[in-house]
């Protein structure tokens, strides 16, 4: 810590520090209720450690945990290696090398972000399964003995999740390679190290905080994934939680499982936060030309980028379109406007709620810079690490308890319903807001950080009160960040499956729920219709991201 104290930015000797300390409770008053949104479900789930029920644990340990733990470890290792291989290689090629189509691929390789893992999963299964078009064609061409690796296997799940989540590693690693530039490689070469060796000794270690950051995000998504593993009938914590609750109606068992899953993701969150801090010290703007690839390397680079793009995005999109044209006439009926309407309503409400909360948090952190507020803001944005299934359980339990309490009071007074809050949109919004608060907070907060203290003090010295500063300085300057937050949260909620599925009122189906119901019956072609809507909506933030990329 000694070196941190030397850094004026950290020790913060602002002339207003005393003032901010005196009003510290205000920062806490803003951020604590928002943090509770995440903290209550987390604590409720973790509390099941405090009340262990031996018979439930015995059952879980004997029948559920061995398979679930094995599968989870397999996913962590397999998908971890997969996203590293795909993400780092593609990032290196598009950031540091020059080859035909590089600019196009640099952009296009982000497109798979628009394709939710569960959509990629059912398209791949539909395409590559024994009865799918690929194997059917192979048998027709080479006879019945033509062999093809089975897609419904651990290998298949790892492949699909790697293709779905590599963009996290790709985006961050690309950013890292682009900022280090060629200068570091040149420095290594001047010290007698060949370029190939310099890649491993300098470029990769320097990009490590970004690569590890992308890896932990990809693994969080892997642990949180519910839809894709369901398609494969590959049991993980998320599917086990769902089954315990909705098939066995054993909410305590679901909660126990959720508490174990939380331990996994919190470990990842700690790693992620730590490497995020390391990046500060690695930031270095470096220019220089790209390495011009020649001969085989040149066309190898084109082929590799094109292959990943085809498999992860283009082919699945074409297949979706093909299925949609087949079922459109029969399947697109009056239910669809309702599915779309609910999806859009939920996504829009969640986006507005998250944007408002994110603004409050970013403002609290800016204005009251005490330790308490800082910690609460961190805790409040922890939800991105917590899987939707866990949040669903953690939100449902206290709401059910509250419902019972209220019913005990109201029923004697003549209230006739069986539930007050359970199954309402409000409860879904609470869980969704907790899950996606970080998604909205990030662009708002980075916009806030671009506003300098001097700009604020200039506004104050021109006679504006603090509320006027917020309205006339902060809000106009944060417009871009708020818009990004709204759009990102909107699309994430459109894609979201487990929270919506587990906390909705019976029959309140959205597009994502429709996808789940069709895929759980193996009707890939009918799942394609809602999936295509989701993918098209998902393209919006990717386009926004690339526009920002072009500006940088």
């Amino acid at each position, binding site marked *: 810590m000694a*070196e941190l104290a*030397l850094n004026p930015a950290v020790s913060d000797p602002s002339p207003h520090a005393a003032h901010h300390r005196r009003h510290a409770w205000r920062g806490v008053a803003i951020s604590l209720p928002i943090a509770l949104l995440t903290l209550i479900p987390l604590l409720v789930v973790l509390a099941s450690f405090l009340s262990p029920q031996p018979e439930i644990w015995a059952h879980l340990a004997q029948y559920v945990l061995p398979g679930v733990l094995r599968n989870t470890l397999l996913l962590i290792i397999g998908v971890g290696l997969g996203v590293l291989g795909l993400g780092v290689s593609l990032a290196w090629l598009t950031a540091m090398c020059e080859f035909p189509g590089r600019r196009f691929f640099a952009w296009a390789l982000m497109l798979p972000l628009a394709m939710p893992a569960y959509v990629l999963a059912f398209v791949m299964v539909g395409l590559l399964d024994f009865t799918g078009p690929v194997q059917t064609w192979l048998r027709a061409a080479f006879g019945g003995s033509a062999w093809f690796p089975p897609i419904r296997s651990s290998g298949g799940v790892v492949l699909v999740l790697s293709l779905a989540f590599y963009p996290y590693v790709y985006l961050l690693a690309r950013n890292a390679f682009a900022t280090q530039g060629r*200068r*570091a490689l*040149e*420095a*290594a*070469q*001047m*010290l*007698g*190290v*060949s*370029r190939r060796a310099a890649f491993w*000794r*300098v470029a990769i*270690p*320097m990009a*490590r905080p970004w690569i590890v950051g992308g890896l932990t995000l990809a693994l969080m998504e892997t642990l949180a994934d519910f839809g894709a593993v369901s398609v494969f009938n590959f049991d993980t914590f998320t599917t086990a939680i769902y089954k315990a609750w909705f098939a066995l109606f054993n909410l305590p068992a679901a909660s126990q499982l959720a508490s174990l899953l939380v331990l996994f993701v919190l470990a990842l969150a700690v790693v992620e936060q730590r490497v995020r801090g390391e990046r*500060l*010290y*690695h930031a*270095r*703007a*470096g220019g220089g030309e790209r390495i011009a690839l020649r001969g085989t390397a040149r066309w190898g680079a084109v082929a590799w980028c094109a292959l990943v793009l085809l498999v992860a995005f283009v082919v699945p999109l074409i297949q979706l379109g093909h299925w949609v044209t087949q079922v459109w006439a029969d399947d697109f009926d009056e239910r669809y406007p309702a599915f779309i309407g609910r999806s859009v309503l939920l996504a829009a409400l969640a986006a507005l709620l998250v944007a408002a909360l994110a603004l409050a948090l970013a403002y609290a952190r800016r204005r009251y810079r005490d330790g308490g507020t800082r910690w609460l803001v961190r805790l409040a944005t922890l939800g991105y690490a917590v899987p939707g299934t866990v949040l669903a359980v953690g939100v449902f339990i206290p709401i059910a308890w509250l419902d019972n309490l209220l019913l005990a009071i109201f029923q004697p007074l003549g209230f006739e319903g069986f539930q007050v809050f359970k199954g309402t949109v409000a409860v879904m919004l609470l869980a969704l807001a907790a899950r996606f608060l970080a998604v909205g907070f990030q662009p708002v907060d980075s916009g806030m950080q671009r506003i300098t203290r001097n700009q604020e003090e200039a506004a104050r010295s021109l006679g504006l009160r603090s509320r006027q500063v917020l309205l006339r300085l902060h809000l106009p300057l944060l417009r871009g960040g708020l818009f990004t937050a709204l759009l990102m949260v909107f699309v994430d909620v459109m894609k979201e499956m487990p929270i919506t599925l587990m906390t909705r009122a019976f029959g309140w189906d959205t597009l994502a729920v429709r996808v789940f119901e069709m895929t759980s019956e193996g009707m890939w072609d009918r799942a394609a219709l809602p999936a295509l809507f989701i993918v098209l909506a998902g393209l919006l933030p990717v386009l926004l991201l690339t526009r920002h990329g072009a500006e940088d």
Partner: protein
Amino acid sequence: MLHLNDIALRYGAKTVVEHLSLSLAAGQIGCLLGASGCGKTTVLRAIAGFETVREGSIVLGGETVADARRSVPPELRQIGMVFQDYALFPHLDVAGNIAFGLGRLDRAARRARVDELLELVGLTGQGGRYPHQLSGGQQQRVALARALAPSPRLLLLDEPFSNLDVELRERLAQEVRAILKAAGTTAILVTHDQHEAFAVADVVGVMADGHIRQWATPYRLYHEPADRFVADFIGEGTFLPGRIVGAQCIEIELGEICRTVPFGGRPGDVADVLIRPDDIQHDDASPTRARVLAKAFRGAEFLYTLELPSGARVLSLVPSHHDHAIGEAIGIRAEIDHLIAFARGE
């Protein structure tokens, strides 16, 4: 030690450097001095091996490392480089950075060499710190130690002081020269700042448009500039019109200067004479008066801009206890040891 023989460097069709030659003896410190875009950094990168030589050759210690046909890769040239942004490796501590190029040594020898260099650059005991924990000046010294560690045949320094503040810059420039001389290193510095060039280098090349205009010691660049561009670029001064009278003298407004005329002019020819601020002495007794147009306080001295009766202007450095008001007429005397003159229209 180092010879650049008539080299040309191009980016695509654009010629950046052409017909450039220079030689450096072992242990000498050279400098390429010029405004940004003059091609000096490109020359440095060509010596390092990052740019392709299209014509001519680069010879290092008797070995041709680059010509139009082949190029030894940078990592095999045994040339060290200090980058403008230092390019320290943030994932390695100071000792790790310095030891980076010492792969061939065993562990004990590597540690000994690292300690030796830490001492050389005055950072003894700081080997365990990380680049982000160091000040700019310390980072600069680590970059120097890292480049010197493998005992390169030649050291290249690309604007090594431009990221430092002015006071530190001057001190470090002298320090770097002392370190290089102590290590007996042959080196080339690239900079746009003549003070830096003069503080560090034995011999300086003034560059413009991809050519070296003059390759000489700092003293000669200042007092015997080869052409009008160098005269203008190095130091301060103004030109006064003059006329050659007799074999050895030029007459200007401030009197006759009798020295060897540096170009082959004949009596009666018109010339421009460069007057440096230190050529004009303030002397209250002098009959020649000049009016103060502007003044800049520099601590020990004032730099006065003076107007002569003809309207021509000269600069004068005057000890700062002579504080004259703007508009005041003061006595001056020309005391010119080095006559710098160019034929009119040259």
